[in-house]
């Protein structure tokens, strides 16, 4: 097949991105478990991953630039490189946010907690993990039919976000938890909502990769097209 070397380079690049995605997923998994089980030691294992993820993200970026310079990609190859860079950015940001949450879990390990708010955080964390995994899996499989459900799931996260922020603003009587913990909880709520968004965006980028529709409305156009066909 023509351009075998180029195709191998593209495959290797994609493999790098998916490897990074797998590692970020692993960090996210440990964070959720640490939150569920109040396991500060598990959270502490993930401290420092941010630096590693950023370095790998920079390597992938550079590889994308070199491929564009050397191979002058067009059409699906160009969309792949563009998407690989965008997805890498989402992965690195998600890794950073996950590490921030792990820091908070470690720093507040001995603090008293508002159990209602903690339960809301755990539910948000599980949902964010699910959305991140789904977005990454859609990118891995290019199965963009699954992308249509992501938006609905993201709406659930937004609802959980509102509920959590309401709990922060209106603590339960008698068990509001330590002030430091409440403060960090507010940040964690925000970080989890962003991680979920990154998962949804990865799915949206994949719709662009496959269909070539404009990024800003790729997912909405795809959903609308399917609804019209139905």
């Amino acid at each position, binding site marked *: 097949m*023509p*351009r075998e070397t*180029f195709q191998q380079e593209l495959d290797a690049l994609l493999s790098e991105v998916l490897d990074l995605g797998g590692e970020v997923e692993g960090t996210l998994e440990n964070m959720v478990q640490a939150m569920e089980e109040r396991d500060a030691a598990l959270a502490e294992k993930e401290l420092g991953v941010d630096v590693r993820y950023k370095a790998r993200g920079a390597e992938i970026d550079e590889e994308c630039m070199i491929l564009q310079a050397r191979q002058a990609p067009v059409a699906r190859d*160009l*969309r792949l490189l563009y998407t690989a860079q965008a997805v890498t950015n989402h992965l690195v940001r998600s890794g950073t946010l996950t590490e921030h949450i792990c820091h908070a879990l470690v720093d507040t390990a001995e603090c008293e907690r508002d159990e209602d708010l903690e339960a809301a955080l755990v539910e948000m964390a599980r949902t964010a993990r699910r959305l991140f995994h789904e977005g990454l899996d859609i990118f891995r499989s290019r199965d963009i039919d699954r992308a249509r459900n992501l938006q609905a799931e993201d709406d659930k996260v937004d609802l959980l976000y509102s509920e959590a922020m309401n709990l922060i603003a209106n603590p339960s009587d008698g068990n509001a938890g330590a002030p430091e913990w409440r403060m960090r909880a507010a940040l964690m709520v925000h970080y989890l909502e962003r991680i979920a968004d990154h998962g949804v965006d990865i799915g949206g980028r994949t719709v662009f990769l496959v269909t070539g529709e404009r990024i800003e409305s790729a997912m909405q156009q795809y959903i609308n097209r399917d609804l019209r066909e139905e």
Partner: protein
Amino acid sequence: MAGASGERGRTGGKPSEDGSTLGMKIEQLSAFYGDFKALTDVSMDIQANKVTALIGPSGCGKSTYIRCLNRMHEVIPGAHAEGHVRLGDEDIYDKSMDPVKIRRRIGMVFQKPNPFSKSIYENVAWGARINGYKGDMAELVERSLKQAALWEEVKDRLKASGLGLSGGQQQRLCIARTLAVEPEVILMDEPASALDPVSTQKIEDTMEQLKQSYTVVIVTHNMQQAARISDYTGFFYIENMGDPGRLWEFDETEKMFSNPDRKETEDYVTGRFG
């Protein structure tokens, strides 16, 4: 044929907004070499003041097609074309049309530079003179050489032989020669394929300027060139060996190189053909 006619900016055949430059409208054009049908049913709108690039694998009919656009194809013994090619509102294949006059209005620049064995000045002036130009010839020569981005390099040696120029300069001299007879459309069949990268860049820069005043159609094997300089791109393709070539997809260049509609087009522009 899906995507073959394009869907945007259908002003082919109509003049530009100020009425000065004509586009072309091709309808159901087929081309033959004797009984062999080389090209079938091509329909295309070529917009005024735009560069339209024609790409596709070897043997798919691009050069045959572009020669049909100014009736050069029928110069080949036994060759003929069927269909309609309109320059503005006029069908150039109408029986009343003089092919020689058509070729003045729709000029051609070829792959291999072919200046006359005359001075630089005479290379440009000769065509205008035999077409009855009565104006200021020196002004016409200067204007044509400036439009071809060659004036500064040759203004002090207009009496020197055109054959003494470099390949890139010779090609720009051929462009100036074409411009001197004041065409409406300029056809170019791989104009830079025989040139070095610097000359190629100068030719491409020239084309960017030319489209301000002319309609340009270019055949090229260099896809990056097509992506760089053209506004519209047509992809020609032969489905099975022995079939006539056909226009497979035609659209704005941006779309053809970012998200073409047809798999064969995408395979070709990404270099996966074969």
